[in-house]
């Protein structure tokens, strides 16, 4: 058995296989519901209602997708240049820290939002720069350094929140003071959580797409990723390209944290991110590293989670089913996407 590329996949193939993946996920959901003693036939409806069934549901899905778009972009940019940035989680927190540092009174309107965004971007960039310089100069594997930095950053945030950044009015709970109103991203819809961070994420996706397809830097980043030797031979400044990639990637991941603090939360706590940095990897790869695809897959991942989570309550099954279904949907989906471009043949 082997795989053979399909030169021009038919529309049926391109749409049918992902649809099949979704159906398979629903079947798994039904089986799990049955196992948990719930009504398997209500499951699909409950997931859909949970993710899209009301204005609240839709906005919550968009809201949860927002940081995923940023981290997904961060990963897509880095992976395209074969820079294995597993540290988006840490960079996210770097951005969040900056949002607090500059947003709690250090600066007022109208500068605080743009300035803190830019500084957050730089902070995330710097955080990724270290592993990248280590890789470029000493050949230290960046998968490991970026991964380890996640733990170090988590502990650093914990230190900040129990030390210098602790909210004096927080009754001892480890969290930062609240941002001043001028430092908050306004909401798009009054009363609901969706904020302008979502719009910024969409804009960021557009910009990244333009960078990758239209600019010389994008060309260089793709070339370095696809064949670093050829890129070097052709005279591309490979190390500089890697550094720039790191800056862009780390910066985007930091914006995820910045927008969560400035937009959604208004303060920083230890659990700001339930793994957005890691999920960003999933989002990016599902999108085949395409910046615009990242938007779609982030919405998909957020929708499956929100929908399945709501379903767990409606059906009365353990909430962990949401993560299970997200994982199942993800694995089926990557398989389906892969199979649109190759077919299994004997020989």
């Amino acid at each position, binding site marked *: 058995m082997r795989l053979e590329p399909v030169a021009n996949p038919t529309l049926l193939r391109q749409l049918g296989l992902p649809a099949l993946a979704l159906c398979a996920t629903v079947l798994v959901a039904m089986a799990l519901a049955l196992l948990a003693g719930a009504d398997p036939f209500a499951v699909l409806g409950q997931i859909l209602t949970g993710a899209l069934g009301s204005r609240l549901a839709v906005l919550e899905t968009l809201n949860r997708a927002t940081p995923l778009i940023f981290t997904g972009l961060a990963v897509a940019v880095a*992976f395209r240049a074969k820079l294995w940035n597993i540290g988006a989680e840490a960079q996210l927190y770097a951005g969040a820290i900056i949002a607090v540092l500059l947003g709690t009174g250090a600066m007022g309107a109208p500068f605080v939002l743009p300035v803190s965004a830019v500084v957050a971007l730089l902070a995330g960039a710097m955080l990724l720069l270290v592993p990248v310089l280590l890789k470029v100069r000493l050949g230290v594997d960046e998968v490991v350094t970026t991964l380890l930095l996640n733990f170090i950053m988590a*502990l650093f945030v914990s230190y900040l929140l129990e030390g210098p950044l602790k909210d004096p009015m927080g009754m001892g709970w480890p969290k930062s003071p609240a941002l001043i109103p001028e430092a908050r991203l306004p909401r798009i819809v009054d009363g609901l959580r969706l904020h302008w961070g979502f719009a910024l994420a969409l804009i960021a996706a557009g910009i990244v797409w333009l960078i990758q397809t239209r600019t010389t830097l994008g060309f260089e980043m793709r070339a370095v990723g696809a064949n670093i030797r050829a890129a070097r031979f052709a005279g591309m400044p490979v190390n500089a390209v890697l550094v720039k990639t790191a800056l862009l990637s780390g910066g985007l991941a930091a914006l995820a944290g910045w927008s969560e603090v400035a937009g959604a939360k208004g303060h920083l706590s230890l659990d700001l991110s339930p793994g957005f940095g890691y999920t960003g*990897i999933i989002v990016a790869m599902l999108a085949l590293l395409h910046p615009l695809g990242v938007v779609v897959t982030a919405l998909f991942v957020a929708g499956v989670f929100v929908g399945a989570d709501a379903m767990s309550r409606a059906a009365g099954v353990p909430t962990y089913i949401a993560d299970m279904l997200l*994982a199942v949907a993800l*694995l089926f989906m990557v*398989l389906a996407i892969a199979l649109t471009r190759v077919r299994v043949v004997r020989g």
Partner: protein
Amino acid sequence: MGGAVIEILISASFWAAVLRIASPLIFATMGELICERAGVLNLGIEGIMVIGAFAGWMAVYLGLPLWGGVAVAFGAGALFGLLHGVLVVPFGLSQHVVGLGVTLLATATAYFAYRLALPEVTTPPKITPFQAWEVPVLSDIPLLGPALFAQTPLTYAAFACAGVVAFVLYRTPLGLALRAAGENPAALEAQGVSVSGIRIGAVMVGSGLMAVGGSFLTLSAFSSFFFEMVNGRGWICIALVVFGAWRPGKAVLGALLFAGFDALQIRLQQTPLGAVVPYQLFLMLPYVLSILALIAMSRRAQVPAALMVPYTKGER
């Protein structure tokens, strides 16, 4: 501070703690090492450790003997390994995504199953875990004896496992084939050995070992299953494989070093230093030192050439 550190370092109990803390890491690191040596990065490790911790414990809770629990953990890990292997080897899907997906799936499956099995329990039930077994004679050696030879059987097994992995890798045809699969799969295929077979097999066995590492937490280090109890240990093992330059011996050394820092920071927190230095700094110690160690030995590491490179027959 130097005095305090030295005092800690010369105590037998410190070294006993190091071996205990290192044991689950050694199992899981060997598992990851096998996978990577065959060319497959297995980011499913964190979740596979969770499922191992759960399945091993559940089996014993339901009446199996302790070693039976270990076997069940291995089986459960191998099963998720099979999933990972099938998706990334013949289908060549992204090892990053599938790995993270497997971690998510395995973790959620363990939690879901636990909640279904024990819906009413609020204090996790206990089993009788492995007890320390003092090796006759050897455990009487002063200092060394109580440190090295008064451990639970699963700790001895961890070190034995590393030995077996090293032997298989370097001394048997199977190990040779496995290394070749990670270096140049085409070379293996050209010699008539199925790359897919070797890689899937390696991922299954490796995942089984990761799960056994997880089960150490519930069958030896502790006696109940807790959510989130694996607590990032799997990710550490990914780092340990690189730290160990993909060699079993060095990886074990890395695990011991990491465990050493961990045991040290626990003890340092109770010295006068602990009153002034934020505890997070202590907790950071093992990670920071890992990075420094990586930098120190960066030039020499030899990455398996075909790591993360999917292999499909008849393509170049």
